């Protein structure tokens, strides 16, 4: 298999510099009704708009109607909330196949099975028509399957070359031959990777390309990308999609895991949707709308977005002035993490912070929470100066906190739900009386939260670890909302949460906003930011560089500002905004905060 990939090397080289992106990404020319068409036919169709002539001479047998991956009746009884049950999936060679589903639907399990990390209890895997059994990822790799994980696994202090050959020293050695091979692959697929660059100097998108190259270097012909766009700004997503199309045109099969509807529609040739551990259907990206896809994922009709009226008041709630934090790193160099951050949030206002992760968002949150010592500046909540106080005092003063990493900062995973309900509010009613805990009252109140916030659990004595991500998050939100917060810090409140829970979480935030809550919203999801916020600020390298009104800005322009390319007040072309809103209204409601009916639509499940 390795030979097959490499044997095509010269052909790839001949192509040289990639001819530019396919002009119409939203309509990948793969008509699903032709599923029994011969392979040449397929490839012609795919690259109809591609000026480069297609390789049709070689290996006709390899690219016949045999699908690259065929999973039949995969069942995995897995300790957890969702098991895979009778999953069928067919991925054709040389296509981008999107696997969609809400979090916890079983996508990851399925991909772990395909990558040999877990064994299915029942069912068969066929790669290029051959029945396979994978015991380790090594078996899958030798079959030409490669996986690019969501979290990159690169050594920062090594070069790209060193990272690529690491663990694969036997393939092409570690010297000039390997470097030539890397260049060859990079050119062939238009990845633009420089083998001698240090990984620590690379941006997120470049690192991702290194990861892809690493997998291709090991001879992968079937690529699994686990939520590859989660860490990218829109422009980088487009570049990634260009790379994927390039890979596809070279005969590589890509399995693309995502729950972002418009991205899937933009790049996929075929879509499979998984819900509750089983495949609920395949969709043709050409024929299906984002709304229909979202409904397939959730299994219920989605509510429409409501028009928002402003609830912002003139009363100032949070006032952050000239916040500055500098950290000294291992080499003794002072690194400014937060630089002169000033922001104000009023009662009933949601302030969104946009930014690529790692630009100081986490530090900003921790500074306001009192978890990081300040080098300068003040934090004032409702007229009270909190700058010198400890985290507990700030929480008691009325700051609610939905942490970015709920497992690390929000929950005691091995403690029962009712103890998790106490966490963070141990000094407050109903959790304690004086210095003594009141477990009885805490239990009763946990029951109330479970009911009001629709936490799906068989009881409150089970550990937090046994709940799914969305339900854990609903428990956290219920807890934080139960103490009449004046300010809610919501860091990625819907990350890793399924669409249904997402809608409920948004609704809870909006209800509280209407009641006068001030919200600091940090999110990587620009649609979430635009949909929820009253004001958006952009953070870049520890500074608030730009601001925008969500009503007059598009995700594209926000993305530009997030890369540091724009500053000041951003306002998009009115036509662009109108178009984006129209698209949203037509299709991607799932990405937008829904109405009160969300609960009803979910309850039936």
């Amino acid at each position, binding site marked *: 298999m390795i030979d097959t990939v490499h044997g095509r090397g010269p052909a790839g080289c001949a192509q040289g510099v990639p001819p530019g992106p396919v002009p119409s990404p939203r309509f990948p020319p793969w008509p699903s009704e032709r599923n029994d068409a011969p392979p040449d036919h397929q490839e012609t169709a795919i690259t109809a708009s591609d000026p480069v002539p297609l390789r049709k001479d070689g290996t006709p047998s390899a690219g016949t109607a045999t699908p690259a991956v065929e999973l039949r009746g995969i069942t995995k009884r897995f300790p957890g909330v969702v098991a895979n049950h009778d999953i069928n999936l067919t991925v054709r060679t040389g296509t981008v196949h999107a696997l969609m589903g809400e979090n916890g639907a079983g996508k990851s399990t399925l991909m772990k099975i395909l990558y040999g990390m877990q064994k299915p209890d029942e069912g068969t895997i066929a790669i290029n028509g051959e029945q396979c059994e994978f015991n380790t990822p090594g078996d899958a790799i030798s079959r030409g399957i490669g996986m690019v994980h969501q979290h990159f696994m690169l050594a920062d202090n090594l070069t790209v070359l060193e990272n690529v050959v690491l663990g694969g020293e036997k393939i092409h050695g570690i010297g000039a031959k390997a470097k030539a091979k890397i260049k060859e692959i990079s050119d062939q697929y238009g990845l633009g990777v420089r083998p001698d660059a240090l990984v620590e100097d690379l941006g997120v998108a470049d690192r991702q390309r290194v990861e892809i190259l690493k997998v291709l270097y090991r001879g992968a012909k079937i690529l699994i990308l686990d939520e590859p766009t989660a860490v990218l700004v829109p422009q980088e997503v487009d570049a990634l999609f260009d790379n994927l199309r390039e890979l596809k045109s070279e005969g590589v099969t890509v399995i693309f895991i995502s729950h972002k509807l418009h991205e899937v529609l933009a790049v996929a040739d075929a879509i499979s949707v998984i819900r509750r551990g089983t495949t609920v259907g395949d969709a043709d990206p050409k024929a299906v709308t984002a709304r229909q896809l979202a409904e397939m994922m959730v299994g219920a009709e989605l509510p429409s977005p409501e028009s928002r009226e402003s609830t912002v008041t003139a009363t100032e709630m949070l006032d952050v002035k000239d916040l500055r934090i500098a950290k000294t790193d291992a080499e003794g160099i002072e690194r400014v993490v937060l630089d002169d951050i000033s922001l104000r949030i009023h009662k009933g206002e949601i302030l969104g912070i946009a930014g690529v992760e790692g630009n100081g968002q986490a530090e900003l949150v921790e500074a306001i929470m009192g978890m990081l010592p300040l080098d300068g500046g003040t934090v004032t909540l409702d007229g009270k100066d909190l700058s010198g106080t400890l985290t507990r005092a700030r929480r008691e003063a009325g700051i609610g906190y939905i942490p970015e990493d709920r497992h690390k900062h929000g929950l005691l995973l091995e403690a029962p739900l009712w103890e998790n309900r106490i966490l963070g509010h141990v000094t407050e009613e109903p959790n304690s009386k004086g210095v003594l805990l009141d477990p009885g009252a805490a239990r009763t109140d946990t029951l109330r939260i479970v009911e009001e916030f629709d936490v799906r659990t*068989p009881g409150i004595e089970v550990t937090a670890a046994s709940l799914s991500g969305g339900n854990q998050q609903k428990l956290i939100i219920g807890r934080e909302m139960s103490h009449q917060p004046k300010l809610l810090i919501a860091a990625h409140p819907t990350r890793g949460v399924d669409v249904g829970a997402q809608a409920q979480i948004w609704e809870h935030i909006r209800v509280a906003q209407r009641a006068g809550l001030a919200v600091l919203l940090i999110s990587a999801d620009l649609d979430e930011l635009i949909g929820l916020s009253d004001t958006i600020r952009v953070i870049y390298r520890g500074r608030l560089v730009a601001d925008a009104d969500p009503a007059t800005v598009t995700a594209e322009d926000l993305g530009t500002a997030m890369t540091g390319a724009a500053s000041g007040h951003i306002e998009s072309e009115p036509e662009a905004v109108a178009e984006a809103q129209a698209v949203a209204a037509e299709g991607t409601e799932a990405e937008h905060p829904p109405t009160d009916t969300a609960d009803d639509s979910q309850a039936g499940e």
Partner: protein
Amino acid sequence: MTSPNPAAKAAKPGLAQRISGERIVLALAAPVLAVVLSVAICSVLLATSGKNPFDAWNVMITYATKSDGQVNILNRSTTYYLAAAAAAFGFRMNLFNIGVEGQYKVAALFAAYVGGQVDLPSFIQIPLLLVTAMLVGGLYASIAGLLKVYRGVSEVIATIMLNSIAVAIVGLLLVPGIFAPKVSGTSNSIQTAPLSESSHFFALDTAGGPLWGFIFIAILVGVVFQFTLTRTRFGFDLRATGRSESAATASGVNVKKMVIISMAVSGAIAGLIGLPELMQNSFNYGQSFQPGLGFLGISIALLGRNSPFGMVFAAVLFAFLDATGSQLPLQGGFPSEIVAVMQGTIVICVVVAYELVRRYGLKRQQQKVGAQLAAQIAATEKKEVSA
């Protein structure tokens, strides 16, 4: 479309639900397995050394059925339990106080000195000695706490060092003219002046000899330990920090303060370890004062899972092994070292077994929750279909 959340109805938290049979079985499985395994290993060991293992077990069990053996076991358990509680208090918040050994030695030395110098009525004298020991132990332990908080020194390293320093301190102070009386007669051994009569703790007279009254102090420590952990805000903070320091910090726990406090409390409990011996048996602190209790306490805490209740059984088991083990060489010439081997294997087995059982329990619960939720959903769907 609206369906009532079934959780609300199902989750009336009765005591029966909280303490399910399965959880008890899971909790007991690991220590029982560990003990059985180590008995097997030691039997093989005895057999290969040419001794009949069943005879050895017989000697031990016979001694344990006699009343003097039982009193001996209970008196030892008292000391062991205090040692375990001292270690466990730190362990509950992932603070590894390896320095219990040094803390109790220094504390007992000071208590012995004070007891030898002061002669007040019992009802003042005894509390005075208890407080002295706890204060000295607590202060000595908090050195490690302060080092951890302000200088980032691992408490493991610091307490191990402090153990060595404790030996040196005892050596430095326990010399004639300082803590020991100037004239020590013909004996070569050096010890503090005997405690005043009023310092003697009461003992219960039984058929098997005096049963130390300190057992009540140990019970009291256990009760207060359990109450603090499960019923106070401080205990919640402590457990939260032990389970996830990052989550505790985010929840508002002042971890630095917690480290210093728990280290001091752990040291204070450690200060009590030497007192049963001091106030009920030897009545002075000498060179032959029982060493090694601190490390034994760590083993017992591990076996008892740092739970005040579990440590009772662990302490009694270790006391049983030690007390009856001393009979082995006397009756049949069995090597008494077999007891040390057994304690060692129990600890190793139990560490492995607890981790296995913990993972199994977590998985099992996730499975159960998944199954229950699936059943709820199925029930709801059925209802909807019929509706």
